[in-house]
């Protein structure tokens, strides 16, 4: 009987190792709408070169059908929310009676904005995420009410701004005034949290390409955010994803929009410098 149990133990270990090999990122190229080629794999930026050789989009870790869904705007359910945000973009709100379009013009003139966020804001003297910038515009330029940080209106608008920058490389600045925030984010990335004592790096740096239970571990890149997730059929903001990950380590999480998550977003975004903006991406 004892021998039998041991034999089972050996078998389980062997099969786990075999499955790990299966979950490697696929060798595939993402071309959106048969015209925009997306960089899903590129040399790691200098500041993460000691940890990774290559940075890879989460797209490479997803199944064939999920990958295909993202390749065509008609099939990508996230684009419905982009269209809703397009209506919001052109709708005047607040005491100033202005819409986004009144200052910024057409939404596609915002191409190139998403790749540089989060970035330092001189007036506020802190690092601004895209969400903070949007709310700053709403409060101070439109005289409108702030949106909830990860609410539907907000996540739709960030999806619109990401969609017009698709194909452009993520390029967040980590030096200058943003450097201390970036370093805070780096520290969080490597800090173990929760009862499981896991840091971001334990899964997404040390173990990407392996299975975590039934799922493929990616590098945790955020170039595809906001992402449409098949599991909850809506767009998900990056801070909500951070929250989910930290919760899964069985820790008390930070709140979306908190200074900790802003710092973490800057750091994680910088790990994907060079990957194309993909948002709204489709994930499991």
């Amino acid at each position, binding site marked *: 009987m004892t021998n039998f149990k041991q034999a089972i133990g050996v078998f389980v270990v062997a099969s786990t190792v075999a499955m790990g090999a299966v979950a490697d990122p696929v060798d595939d190229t993402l071309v959106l709408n048969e015209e925009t080629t997306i960089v899903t794999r590129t040399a790691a930026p200098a500041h993460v070169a000691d940890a990774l050789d290559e940075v890879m989009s989460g797209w490479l870790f997803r199944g064939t059908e999920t990958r295909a869904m993202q390749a065509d705007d*008609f099939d990508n359910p996230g684009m*419905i929310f982009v269209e809703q945000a397009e209506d919001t973009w052109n709708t005047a709100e607040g005491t100033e009676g202005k819409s986004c379009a009144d200052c910024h013009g057409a939404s596609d003139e915002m191409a190139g904005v998403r790749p540089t966020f989060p970035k330092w804001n001189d007036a506020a003297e802190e690092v601004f995420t895209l969400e903070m910038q949007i709310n700053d515009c709403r409060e101070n330029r439109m005289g409108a009410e702030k949106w909830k940080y990860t609410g539907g209106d907000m996540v739709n608008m960030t999806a619109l701004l990401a969609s017009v920058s698709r194909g452009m490389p993520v390029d967040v600045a980590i030096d200058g005034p943003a450097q201390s925030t970036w370093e805070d984010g780096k520290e969080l990335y490597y800090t173990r949290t929760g009862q499981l004592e896991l840091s971001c790096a334990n899964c997404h740096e040390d173990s990407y390409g392996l299975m975590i239970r039934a799922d493929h571990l990616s590098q945790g890149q955020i170039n595809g955010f906001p992402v449409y997730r098949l599991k909850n059929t809506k767009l998900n903001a990056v801070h909500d994803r951070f929250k989910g990950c930290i919760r899964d380590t069985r820790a008390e999480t930070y709140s979306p929009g908190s200074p900790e998550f802003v710092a973490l977003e800057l750091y994680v975004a910088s790990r994907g410098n060079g990957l194309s903006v993909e948002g709204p991406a489709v994930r499991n």
Partner: protein
Amino acid sequence: MAKGVKPRVKVPKKAAAGEAITIKTLISHKMESGQRKDDDGNVIPRSIINRFTCDFNGENVIDVTLEPAISTNPYLEFEATVPEAGEFKFTWYDDDGSVYEESKQIAIG
């Protein structure tokens, strides 16, 4: 009346005569099943797209009856043979009596 309803259709711009083409359609609609209750326990009335049709130059291609179990934003994909140049006409029928229409030209070439 259901809010934010917007039909979308994807049809190739041209096809060879007699070729079977793939048509994709999507309409944003909440597809409230009529089975759910709100916070006060009252039944939320059913509000769905109950019928979808596609015609080509007046000839019916497909006529679909949709039921309450169909999810939000119903997506229908089907193939159609194109014998000649013409126009595909798509029609969605809402429970509230609204009719949403969309049409697409296709050329032979």
